[in-house]
């Protein structure tokens, strides 16, 4: 069963005969957060509950892509969301992929069982929300303009 996004899937009431579903994005199709989900019985890192009450866990065949866990590139206000995405990604897999893009974070803490972080992303330390404007002049490489 296919959905445009995980958001759309979470809002759907899904037949009990369906055991897996596929999404084309996290927030919207094509945003890079596409994933395969399998029916499960409880909440899991990166999983969700659909409108019918069923639980779905993300089914990984490779590294956990942080975009499939809700990370948002290029937005200085999304540091907390990005950190949750990293945490959930490491909760789902010992191997995590941060793809190309600028991700603002405060501090990422891989668990003791983490084995690999493929960091193709540019991570930028972002300050608390009140001070975030200082970062608005940063370029994608992370170097001050």
């Amino acid at each position, binding site marked *: 069963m296919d959905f445009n996004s995980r958001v759309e899937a979470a809002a759907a009431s899904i037949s009990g005969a369906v055991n897996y579903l596929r999404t084309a994005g996290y927030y919207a199709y094509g945003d890079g957060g596409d994933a395969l989900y399998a029916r499960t019985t409880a909440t899991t890192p990166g999983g969700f509950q659909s409108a019918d009450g069923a639980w779905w866990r993300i089914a990984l065949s490779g590294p956990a892509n942080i975009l499939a866990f809700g990370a948002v590139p290029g937005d200085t206000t999304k540091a907390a969301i990005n950190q949750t995405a990293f945490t959930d990604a490491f909760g789902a897999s010992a191997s995590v992929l941060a793809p190309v893009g600028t991700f603002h974070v405060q501090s990422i803490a891989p668990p003791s069982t983490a084995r690999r972080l493929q*960091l193709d992303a540019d991570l930028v330390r972002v300050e608390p929300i009140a001070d975030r404007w200082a970062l608005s002049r940063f370029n994608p490489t992370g170097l001050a303009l």
Partner: protein
Amino acid sequence: MGVIEVQSNGVGLVIEGLGSIAIASATTYPTTANLRFGSSNFCTVRGLTISGGNYNIVLFNTNAVSIENNNFTSYTVRCIDASGFNFFSKVRFNFIAGGADTSDHAVCFNGSPIGTTIEGNTVTGAKVWSFTLQGGAQNFKIINNVSQFSRREAITVIGTGGTISGNILNFDNTHVDLGSSFATMTNTIISNNIFTLPSSPAILFGSGCSSNIVSGNTMVAPPRRVITGAVNNGSGLIRLTVSTAGLQTGDAPIFVNNVGGVPNANGSWTVTFIDATHLDLQGSTFAGLYTGGGYIGDQNWASVALYGDASNNTISGNTTFNFNASAEFYAKEFGTNATNRIFNNVGDPPNDRPVFTVSATSMIEDPIGTTVAKLPTNARNGSRIFVTDGLVGSSPVTGGSAGTWAMRLNNAWRASP
């Protein structure tokens, strides 16, 4: 806290890719590092671009962490800082640039690091030290690195059982600083390095260095400036005519040597730049008539300086330019230096000496291109010296022919027949 904070990872987390980690403001985040590893084993950081912050990478109580092939572009205090107990760390093939004026180290391991490998890195523009191992490093390797334009020591180590080899160290001050006033430096090999333009000894041993080998290095001090005249500048100061001034007003200390006929010129001075070929010596008093000779050296050092009780060290096969001696001992006459061997070093005449002062039993053999062997009167009985080109010096032994031996016996130097 690190932008990436790795704690208690025992499975060997690998962080690698084409990405970067940046800290916007070291002032806003004074305690934030780009990456921090605590109590973690077998982790690797590879291929990243890392910038900003007071610290780029911090290690605390780690085992076998590798930091390799990264590009460090800026840091405020230290690029890589290790404290606690760190074993078998590897810092390899990184490019480290962009130290700030407040930076003190590019790579610094404290707390008795064991088995540290620092290999193939390029450090440029470190504001103070490039590579530092302290607190009693053991079994380390610092090999094949390039360090240039650091303001202080390129390599600083307190420890034992190491190899410092194949490094190219350019435009630094004291290049290799080993041991300290309170620590020993032992059983370390310093070989096949290239040092250029140090303004102090290329290799400086602190107190208590023993059983080290300094061999096969090329050490180049700033070239001497030839003096061709010394006159009264009209105000009573000595004005030197030099091949090329290359100095600025206020530069000090400037060492003037061997000026004939105007002995007051010889010594350490602060200079005043007059023009491209003339310098005045501040505070000097002109007297006499210039008869020829003289040179300016930016420094007046040996290529290897050994402080304190230096024993059983071997300094051999080095090639030096523009230094005053192959080795210099600072242990004073009551020092306990013993059986240091200094041989087969290649100096450059006419002023390089195989040894500056020796306060102990030393063996000096086969210096090449050095016609002056200053024989210290406080050397211990049993010391011997052999100078290929003959012996000339301030000792009782002077003017020997090529291949002359001298030996210290009964508190006097005895020339060979």
